[in-house]
């Protein structure tokens, strides 16, 4: 009797929301892409917890992709109210720099220009599309790592080189 594989939506939602929120909060998001990978690992953890069957790296990749998509959407929404706050933080940093340095370090201008660039609606949408693609890849990586860390160990199947499985004797008849 084959066992049903678990649904991926809830684990992806949990991982994606956590990763998206942490990625959208200023200062906390200094860990860059690591939050998204972490979200994928979290999603894989919840997926393996519910699963009665052995999950493979491919399952981790899929739940990670969905996690990344959700994280991109959440991060975009979370970032909106924090954008004004981050502008204040940047202004404060610029003011402090100007007190101690006659000339601004090179590169700050392009960084500020890039932030303005992201402000328009069209480019925000384009940024969302790019985020979805990038976060999906990062989430997939996290999901694969998560399956490796938390995947159940069952009897090994022939030619299944990705995850070890233990031998299932429940269907054998004497």
């Amino acid at each position, binding site marked *: 009797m084959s066992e049903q594989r678990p*649904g991926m939506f809830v684990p992806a939602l949990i991982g994606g929301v956590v990763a998206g929120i942490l990625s959208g909060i200023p200062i906390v998001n200094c860990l860059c*892409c690591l939050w998204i990978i972490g979200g994928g690992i979290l999603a894989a953890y919840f997926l393996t917890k519910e699963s009665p069957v052995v999950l*493979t790296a*491919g399952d981790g990749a*899929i739940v990670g992709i969905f996690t990344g998509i959700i994280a991109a959407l959440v991060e975009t929404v979370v970032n909106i109210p924090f954008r004004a706050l981050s502008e204040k933080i940047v202004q404060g940093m610029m003011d402090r720099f100007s007190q101690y340095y006659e000339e601004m370090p090179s590169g700050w201008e392009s960084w500020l*220009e890039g932030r303005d660039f992201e402000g328009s609606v069209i480019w925000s949408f384009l940024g969302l599309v790019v985020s979805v693609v990038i976060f999906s890849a990062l989430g997939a990586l996290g999901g694969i790592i998560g399956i490796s860390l938390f995947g159940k160990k069952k009897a090994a199947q022939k030619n299944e080189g*990705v995850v070890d499985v233990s031998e299932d004797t429940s269907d054998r008849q004497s």
Partner: protein
Amino acid sequence: MMTAKTKFTIIYIATLIGILLWIGALFYAPYLKSISSPFSRFLYAVFSPTCHQNPSRCFYAFGNPVAVCSRCLGIYAGFFLGTLIFPLVKGLSTPVMPKAKTLILLSIPIFIDATGNLVGLWTSPIWVRFLTGFIWAIILPFYFLAGLADYILHKRKHSKLA
């Protein structure tokens, strides 16, 4: 009809080309900035979702900051090196994921460095950030390629969304 090894070789080459293009774009952005190309702003914006791009945390090329911080650059550089050495370590037949303890061991430096910086215990120089990201990311392609291969070669068996 392609064998599994041939399919996986294609996946591997596509991944190698992909990470090369990605790293190339990181350095192309400051080059475009150096020649005052308006496209540079778009390219910097592409990488902004995944990185704070703080210039004080970035290496510089062509007189402008690379499109991501030093830690992210280290991660991508480590991923590239890991992808490059993958065939020498695992071969291009059946992809197998590394042991968890190897990942945990390689994660220790970046975990300590990132945590220390996040809680304000210290501020690491950019070369330390680069190095910790680099060390951790060397093992990532071994997971990525195994997962990608498993998904593409065995996709009939995978779960549905709900």
